[in-house]
């Protein structure tokens, strides 16, 4: 299910001169230092950088989990850098599909209940919710595992449930933070295969990793170092 096409002039993500400053005691730390970034519809961007470079901070801002200290952040045509907590929750719910390193599934819920959860908070009626969740699980090849709990699934399967959860609400952006970090090489490759496939289906993907091997699979690579972004020419499909 591809997102609808939009005019190329209007980028999905437009970040201008963004700063995130942490104050600890008397010291200040520019975790994000005058960052500018544009992500278009259908893009597949990898953000790479060493540990402590500010990747997670950037991901939190892009994912509306945190607000910047200053600068502009336009997401899907809306300036959101000054929005309040409640509004941000709504934007996370509708516009962003998270794929976390540690899967972050709710252990007490079954696969389908996990996938349904964003739709529950969106207020989608039960029947339609169920249908969308089954569809999303089908996309990641887990149609026969809908009533399994996370503990009854392998790591790769759990990450696929998490991907299904990110897909269920059909958000314009998928945000993946080290999606293969907790997986062995083989399942990591498998999951990356999925993510590439989703991109080829038209999903916009922002991927965060420290692994150059993973980042090469993206269409565009952006380096981050000490909170500063550096775009570089990216590898092929």
């Amino acid at each position, binding site marked *: 299910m591809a997102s609808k096409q939009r005019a190329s002039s209007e980028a999905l993500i437009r970040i201008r001169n963004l700063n995130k400053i942490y104050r600890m005691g008397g010291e200040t730390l520019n975790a994000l230092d005058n960052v500018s970034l544009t992500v278009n519809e259908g893009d597949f961007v990898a953000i790479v950088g060493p540990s402590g470079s500010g990747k997670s901070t950037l991901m939190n801002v892009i994912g509306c989990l945190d607000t910047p200290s200053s600068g502009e952040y336009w997401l899907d045509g809306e300036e959101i850098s000054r929005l309040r907590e409640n509004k941000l929750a709504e934007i*996370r719910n509708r516009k962003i599909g998270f794929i976390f390193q540690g899967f972050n599934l709710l252990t007490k819920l079954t696969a389908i209940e996990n996938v349904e959860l964003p739709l*529950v*908070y969106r207020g989608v009626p039960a029947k339609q919710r169920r249908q969308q969740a089954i569809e999303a699980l089908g996309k990641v090849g887990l149609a026969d595992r809908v009533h399994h709990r996370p503990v009854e699934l392998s790591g790769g399967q759990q990450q696929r449930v998490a991907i299904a959860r990110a897909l269920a609400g059909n958000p314009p952006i998928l945000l993946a933070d080290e999606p293969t970090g907790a997986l062995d090489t083989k399942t990591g490759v498998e999951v990356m295969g999925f993510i590439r496939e989703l991109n080829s289906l038209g999903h916009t993907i922002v991927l965060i990793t420290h692994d150059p091997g993973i980042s090469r699979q993206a269409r565009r690579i952006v380096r981050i170092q000490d909170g500063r972004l550096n775009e570089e020419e990216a590898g092929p499909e």
Partner: protein
Amino acid sequence: MSVFQAFKMAIKSILSNKLRSLLTMLGIIIGVTAVISLVALGQGATKSVTEQVRSLGTNLLTVNILGRGSANTMDAGEAAALGEEVEGIQYVAPANTQNATVKFGSSSESVSIVGTNADYAHVREYEVASGRFVAQIDLDVYQKVAVLGYTTATDLFGFADPVGEYVLIQGTRYKVVGVLAEKGSSMTGSNDEVVIIPETSFERLFKTKGVRTIYVQVETTEQMDAVVAGLEKSLSNRFRGNTSSYRVFNQSDALSALTSVSDTLTLALAGIAGISLLVGGIGIMNIMLVSVTERTREIGIRKAIGAKKRDILIQFLIEAIVLSGLGGLLGIGIGVGAAQGASSAFNMDIAFSANVILIAFAFSVGIGVAFGMFPANKAAKLKPIDALRFE
């Protein structure tokens, strides 16, 4: 997110950790059990006291003649005439009581002999099971007739019909003309171990003069006060203003005094039980706070995928309410069982009222709201990044 959805979530979470949920509810369960069973016992006591006083008769006044010097009784005819003098009197029964032995054949019983008139049956609410009661004509002609109480009749005659037989009261032959229906006992003792004879015969038999007790039944409850005043005025005239010679005793006053005592008792019991409910609420708050800390990551995940503050608040609040409400229901069940157990084991009266049960349930739900609010608010205020980072 709908409230229905929140309920489903809460029940799921409660069922996923049954032992902890039970322990969380324990305080509420014990509190509600205490409220329900103690109040049932308290109200049971009130009810039985009320019933016992009522069994003396409704709208009943008792006049006790204390007298002055040797004139410590009142002429029975004069006493009966009070019914004409004072407005609002339905029945008036002067009565004398004396313990004596009653014999029939070889069996003999010690009972109280009551000398009175026909109104006595109405005033004391006696029913005649067979034969008849004492009549005015019996008094007029000093008839030696007797009406036996239920127990006295069976003690003396077994299954045989006593009516028409003769009994010996203090050695004097009395003809049994009636037997009373069973009445049970009241505060004043058994009502069925009596022999009732005409007042005039009583005076002869026991060589007494006049009566010391007059039972007065008032027509309506509204007239009680007026009749008391009227009686006091009449008696005051008779005893020349010596108010210590008589006492008019209003049984509804005694009843309200007694019920107010047992109502106070019930209230005190409810108060103690209410405190244990409060402690139960603090227990819920405690465990909910632990649960919020334990589930910080869950909260973070929920918030990351779009749960608003309100959603998390409602989730935890409903969890607390479902826990306390469920505890309340269990407590009501156990409380009813415990009260019934205590009532059959210790032979105590109990009374359940729908009101108390509803209030106990509402109170436990209220406790869930009050004590769930703090942990739920704590959960709702967590920032998603902090909550996600939490291990």
